[in-house]
């Protein structure tokens, strides 16, 4: 089980959290002018890296806030967490 450092509440066990997928995926700014390929990229395509990955978690049984987390997908070691909305690390 991961020990996840919530930026607001501190380190808590994984059971308190919900994984919320890859971070920093922005919805197309102008939907009317967005082609099918770009929608596909936004909706379905994921980088799924073997190594450094930036993902969102929600502290569902705590502060209930979303935040971003940098984790290595080979070792599962968490490098850092930071509030949603901050620049990509």
């Amino acid at each position: 089980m991961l020990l996840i450092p919530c930026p607001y509440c501190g380190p808590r066990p994984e059971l308190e959290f919900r994984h919320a997928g890859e971070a920093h995926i922005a919805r197309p700014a102008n939907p009317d002018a967005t082609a099918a390929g770009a929608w596909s990229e936004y909706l379905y395509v994921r980088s799924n890296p073997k190594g450094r990955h930036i993902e969102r978690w929600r502290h569902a049984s705590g502060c209930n806030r979303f935040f971003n987390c940098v984790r290595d997908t080979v070792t599962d070691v968490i490098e850092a967490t930071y509030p949603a909305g901050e620049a990509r690390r």
Partner: protein
Amino acid sequence: MRHSIFNLVRQAFAGNQGWPRQWRSPAPKRAYDMIVVGAGGHGLATAYYLAAEHGLRNIAVLEKGWLGGGNTGRNTTIIRSNYLWEESQKLYEHAVQLWEDLSQTLNYNVMYSPRGVMMLAHTQHDVQSFQRHIHANRLGGIDNEWLTAEQAQAFCPILNIDPSLRYPVIGAALQRRGGTARHDAVAWGYARAADALGVDIIENCTVTGIDRDASGAVSGVQTSRGAIRAARVGVVAAGHSSVLMGMAGVRMPLESYPLQALVSEPVKPVMPCVVMSNTVHAYMSQSDKGELVIGAGTDAYTSYSQTGGLHIAMHTLDAICELFPVVRRMRMLRNWGGIVDVTPDRSPIIGKTPVPGLFVNCGWGTGGFKATPGSGHVFAHTLATGEPHPINAPFSLDRFRTGRLIDEAAAAAVAH
């Protein structure tokens, strides 16, 4: 040497010292007509059908580890075809029909055992969902029948149908032709049969790059054992599909999750069938060795670690202990994880890619083992002809652009 009663007796009298190696261990040639990346069940089946049905002999299967050492050796070996959508039914039923005489086809005992797969309903929603599946399956010509809780218990006597359970069993869907097979034997049988037809199976050969010529088409692969040229490459790399496709610059609609399983100490036969429960995240069968084989749901996060959180296995064992109180005091011998590549619609991707000459067979998620023969068969057709077989045509990569998804979330094994 063929496996036959004659050879079995002859070798028994010769102390079983005369059995040859089941497949060669060749050094990679500089060039092949076709390369399959990944020597799991699906990759080996692809190579076998390329050789057996399409007459291609100058092909190689490249494997970074050992043959059948990934998800083929890590799954819980369940076979069934009772999927909801017509496209899926045709794909998985194609596989079940190949399973039925696979041992004879390969001259290798894959121990296919159609002992019945029973999926438990614990809520009214489950009942409605399963009955919808049963009706859809009847229209598709696939066997799947509804059982009451009492009938379910008669089919699997150790099942607890006490109404006081937190999630009581209120019925079940049973596919009698579903069952299990010996997962390692499937990889070995395909490897042996493909090797006998001249396919080079090259283990410990990691693909590190995919080469493309001036027109953008595939021209070969870079590996830990040197460059190998080929005009067609089929990627069958399960959890590592995103990584391999990334080498050709193709981004995939995939995420790789750990999926855990565990086995108990071996005991006398107690479990005559496979029982699955999507609602409480547990499934169990008994191997021919006597171990209870138990599968859990996927972990919450993406990972390539081939391990998962203990709380996931505990959650599954809680459910197993409720459903099968007779096994409560058994010890678990081993647990492990595999990395499964999950698509947004929980259906596989089998077909062409934007790169000419590059083909992909991936996205089998939590339920790829059951499809091994069918997957290899249609993917071999795709590789040999350059166009998808009618059965895998709907499972294109392009469906994530056109929106023609095959949403099997309700039918997939667990945790969706």
